[in-house]
C-alpha cells in the first residue's frame, strides 16, 4: 500500500524551488551562494487600477476618443498629465488622476495601473542556486535538518531559534508570561498554544517566527493574520509535539533556523518547513518522496487512538482487521515509543523519513 511521507530528518540534502507569483526577473546566478535574506528574483505587482473614460469625459464615441488619446500602453504617467485633448473654442482636456502606468488603451478608455510595488523574492534559507527558472525563480540546494509540519500561515523568515522559557515537555502550553523582550527577533519553539493573548504578545515583541507542536483551532484566524511565520508540526487541539521533531529542535536551539510556513497543499506536496542549515563533509542523500508500507519504518499515527504518537511499523497484518469503530480495514502493528504495541489502520499512518 502506498505510504504518505513526512520528512523529519536530522541531516539531509534539501532542494527547494523559490518562485515568483507572476513572471518577473531572476537576479540570482547559477551556483551563487545565497543567504536567507538575499533577493533571488523580483517582479512588479500592480496594486490597483483606474479606468479613465475618455469618451464619456469628452462626450465622444469610443472610436473618436481613441484618436485623441495621447498615451500608450507601458507609458508612465504623472498626476495631472494630459491623457487626451479635444480642440475647440474651449478645449476639453482629460488628465491622469494619479501617478501610474498605462496598461491598456482602447474603447475610448485608458486603464492606468497605480501604486505598483516591487515584490522581492528572498532565498528564505542559505544554500546554493542549483537551477534557474527563467522569469520565475530559482532552485536552492542546502544541507541540514529538515522538519515538515502540517499547518502554516504562509510567511517566511530566518533567525535564531530559542526554546520558550520554562519549556519542560513537548506538550507544555505557551503562556503569555513566558514571552518577554529577551525573545524579540527570535524564532520561538513551544509546545501548544491556545491563548490568544500569547499570540498577540508574540506579535507585539515581535517574534520572528513560532514553532508549535499543536494549536487550538480557535486561534487559526488570528494565526493567519500574524505577521511572523507560524509552523505547527503536529496538529489541532492540545497534543504534544512529536518526540522526533522535539528532540531535533531542542538539540538545535540557539542556531540560525529558516522557517517557511507555506500552507500544506496535498496537491503540490508543499508543506510548512523548518530548515536548520548544517555543514556537511560529504554529499547527503535526498529525502525520498514516495514509498510503500513495510516493516521497520518509523511511522506517525494520524488518528485516534494514539494520535500523533510515533513508533516503528512491526508487521503488516494479513486480510482485514475489525476496529472499534466497526470498520474492517487493512492494518499494521506499530511498536510505540512507550513499548506498547498497537494495531492501526494503514490509512491512518504516515511514514517519517
Amino acid at each position, binding site marked *: 500500500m502506498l505510504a504518505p511521507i513526512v520528512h523529519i530528518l536530522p541531516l539531509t540534502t534539501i532542494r527547494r524551488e523559490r518562485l515568483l507569483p507572476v513572471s518577473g526577473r531572476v537576479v540570482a546566478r547559477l551556483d551563487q551562494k545565497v543567504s536567507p535574506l538575499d533577493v533571488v528574483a523580483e517582479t512588479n505587482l500592480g496594486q490597483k487600477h483606474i479606468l479613465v473614460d475618455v469618451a464619456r469625459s469628452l462626450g465622444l464615441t469610443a472610436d473618436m476618443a481613441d484618436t485623441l488619446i495621447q498615451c500608450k500602453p507601458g507609458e508612465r504617467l504623472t498626476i495631472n498629465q494630459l491623457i487626451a485633448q479635444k480642440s475647440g473654442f474651449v478645449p476639453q482636456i482629460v488628465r491622469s488622476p494619479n501617478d501610474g502606468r498605462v496598461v491598456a488603451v482602447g474603447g475610448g478608455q485608458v486603464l492606468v495601473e497605480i501604486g505598483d510595488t516591487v515584490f522581492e523574492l528572498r532565498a528564505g534559507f542559505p544554500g546554493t542556486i542549483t537551477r534557474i527558472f527563467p522569469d520565475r525563480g530559482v532552485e536552492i540546494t542546502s544541507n541540514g535538518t529538515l522538519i515538515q509540519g502540517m499547518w502554516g500561515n504562509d510567511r517566511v523568515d530566518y533567525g535564531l531559534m530559542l526554546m520558550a522559557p520554562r519549556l519542560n515537555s513537548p506538550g507544555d502550553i505557551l503562556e503569555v508570561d513566558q514571552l518577554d523582550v529577551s525573545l524579540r527577533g527570535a524564532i520561538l519553539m513551544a509546545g501548544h498554544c491556545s491563548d490568544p493573548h500569547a499570540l498577540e504578545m508574540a506579535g507585539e515583541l515581535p517574534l520572528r517566527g513560532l514553532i508549535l507542536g499543536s494549536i487550538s483551532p480557535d486561534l487559526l484566524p488570528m494565526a493567519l493574520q500574524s505577521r511572523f511565520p507560524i509552523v505547527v508540526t503536529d496538529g*489541532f487541539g492540545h497534543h504534544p509535539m512529536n518526540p522526533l521533531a522535539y528532540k531535533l529542535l531542542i538539540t538545535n536551539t540557539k542556531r540560525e533556523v529558516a522557517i517557511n510556513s507555506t500552507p500544506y497543499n496535498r496537491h*503540490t506536496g508543499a508543506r510548512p518547513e523548518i530548515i536548520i542549515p548544517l555543514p556537511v563533509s560529504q554529499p547527503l542523500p535526498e529525502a525520498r518522496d514516495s514509498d510503500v508500507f513495510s516493516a521497520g519504518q518509523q511511522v506517525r499515527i494520524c488518528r485516534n487512538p494514539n494520535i500523533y504518537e510515533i513508533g516503528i511499523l512491526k508487521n503488516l497484518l494479513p486480510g482485514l482487521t475489525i476496529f472499534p469503530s466497526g470498520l474492517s480495514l487493512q492494518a499494521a502493528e506499530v511498536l510505540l515509543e512507550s513499548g506498547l504495541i498497537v494495531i492501526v489502520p494503514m*490509512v491512518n499512518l504516515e511514514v517519517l523519513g
Partner: protein
Amino acid sequence: MPSSLIDADSVMAVDVGSCTTRATLFDVVEGSYRFISIGQSPTTASAPFKNVEEGVVRAIENLQEITGRTFLSSENKLIIPSQDGSGIDIFVATISAGPAYKTVIVGLLNDVSMQSVNRLARSTYARVVESISVNDRRNPEEQIDSLLQLEPDLVLIAGGTDGGATRSVQKVIDIVGLACYLLPAEKRPSVLYAGNQAVAGDVSNSLKALSSSFNVSPNIRPALDVEDLQPASRELADVNMQMRRNRLGGVQDLYSMTGSNLLPTAYAEGRLIRFMSKVYQSNKGVMGIDVGASATTIAAGFNGELTLGVYPQFGLGEWVSGLLRYTNMDEIMRWIPMEIPVNYVRDYIYHKSVYPNSVPATLEDMAVEQALTQQALRLAIGAINKEIPTSIKRSTPGGLPYFEPILASGSVITNAPTVGQGLMILLNSIQPVGITKIIFDQNHLLPGIGAAAGHNSMLPVQILESGGFQGIARVIAPLSSARAGVPILRGRLVTSDGNETRFEIKQGTLDLIPFASEGAGRLFLEPIQHTDAGFGPGRSGEVQVIGTLLGVVIDARGRPLQLSKEAGYRREMLKKWIWTLGG
C-alpha cells in the same frame, strides 16, 4: 447503430476520486450485462506522484487479482480491444480528483441570468469566488482588481436573451477582457460563454485570445422565462475536462485511453439519474446522492429533467473545515448519539482537513464522522431543494419533493459499520417524504454506468436490474400534524406466502417491520384522520414491497425532523433510532 446484445462488449469504468481510484468491470453474463467486480487503489493525483496514472494502474491490477483476468500488458498498458481473453472492449472514465476550480460568474441581472449562471456553476466542481453583473455597484476598476487578485481558473458568462440586450453584455465582457489581458498569460482563465447568441461572435473576438480556452454554448436563458442549462452543462463538463487534462498529471493519457470518454464524475452520475427518471416514468423524482471527499453531489431527476448540485463546500475531504462557514458546532453536535466534548469535534474537523484519507478507528470518531456527514448532506439537501423547479409537486410548501428511489453512495454511508447506520444518516439528512426506496450504490457504480451509457444504452438498464446495487429499505414517511404519541397510521404487510403483519404507527416514532430480502409482498396503509402516507391526506393505498435488506421502515418522526434541545434526551433518542434500524 443501436446497441444490442449481439455487439456485447466488456466494459471497464474507472473513477478517479479525490481519495480512491476504482476500476469497475461490467460484462455480459447469460445474455445481459452484469457488474462483475471492482478494484481499488489510493488516488495518486496529489504529491508525490502528481499523476493519476499510477492509481489507475494499481486499481486495474487489483481488479486483475480479484477476477483472475488480464487487462494490462507487460508494459502496464491497457489491452483494448480485448484479444485472446485478455483486455477489455470499452473503456470509460470519470474524475472528481483535483481541487474545485475558482470560478467567476458573470451575467446581467441578479434575479435572471445571474441565478441561471450560478446554477450552471453548481453543476460541476466549481467554487464561485466572485460575481459580476450590471447590478454590481462597484466601479469597473474595482471589479477588474478583484478579478486580478482572485486569479480565477474559470469564468462563466451568461446574460441577455437571444436577440435581447447586447450593449450591457458587451459592458461586462469588457471588464472580463481587461482583467484577462492584465493577467499573465499562464494565469488566464478558461471562459465559457452561455449568453445572448447574437453577440457570441463578438464575445469570441474579444476573449478568445485572452483566455486559456474559450468555449461557447447555447444560451442558458434564451428567453426571460426559459432556462435551459443542459447544453451548457454538457459544454461545462468538457471545459472541466480540458482543465483537468491541462493541470493534473496523467489525465491527458487517461482521456486518450478512453477515446475521449472521460467525464466529470458528477456529470456522469447526473446523466444516469436523468436517464432513470425518464425510464421509470413515475410521478416522483429519482434522487442520487454522493457524499465524497471532493464534494457532496445531489442529482434530482424528474421525467428526464435534471437538477444537479455539486457542492465542494460540503465535501468531507480537505475542505471540510470550511463547512463551519455554512453551519455551526451545535448543528453538527446535535447528530452525535454519545457525549463527546465540542472541542474534540472541532479538533476532529480541522484534523480531517489535513488527513482526508484517514478513517475512524474508534467509536467516538465514527460518531463524529457520521454527524459531519449528516450535517453536510443536510446542507446540500437544503441547497438542492431551492434549485428544483417550483413546478415539481412537493409535500408541503418549500418541502422536499417526492423521490423514489433514492440512490446513495459515499463510503461513510455505504460502508458504515451497519446498514442501519448508513440508512440513519440518510433518513436524518434527506428527511424523505411519502413512500420511497433507499438503495445503496456500495460499489460506486453510478458514475461508471453514466459514462458507459454514452457507448451502450443497454448497459445501464441491465445493470440497474441486475442487483449491482443494494436495496436497503422501503421507507414510508407519513406527514401528520398530530402531537407526538398520537396514532396516525395503521397498516398491514402481507407477504406472498400469506403471512400478515399488522401495525399501528404513532407520531414521533421510527419503526422497522422486518421483511426477508428475498421475499415479496404488499403493504396496505390506512391513514388516521388527515395523515398523508404518500397517497394524499387521509387517503389509503397499497404498495408492492420487494425484499430489501432491512424491510419496511416507517419514519413518523415528522418533517422537518425536530430534535430535542435537551442534549441527554436527544442522544437517547438518536441511540434508540439506530437500535431500531439494527444498531
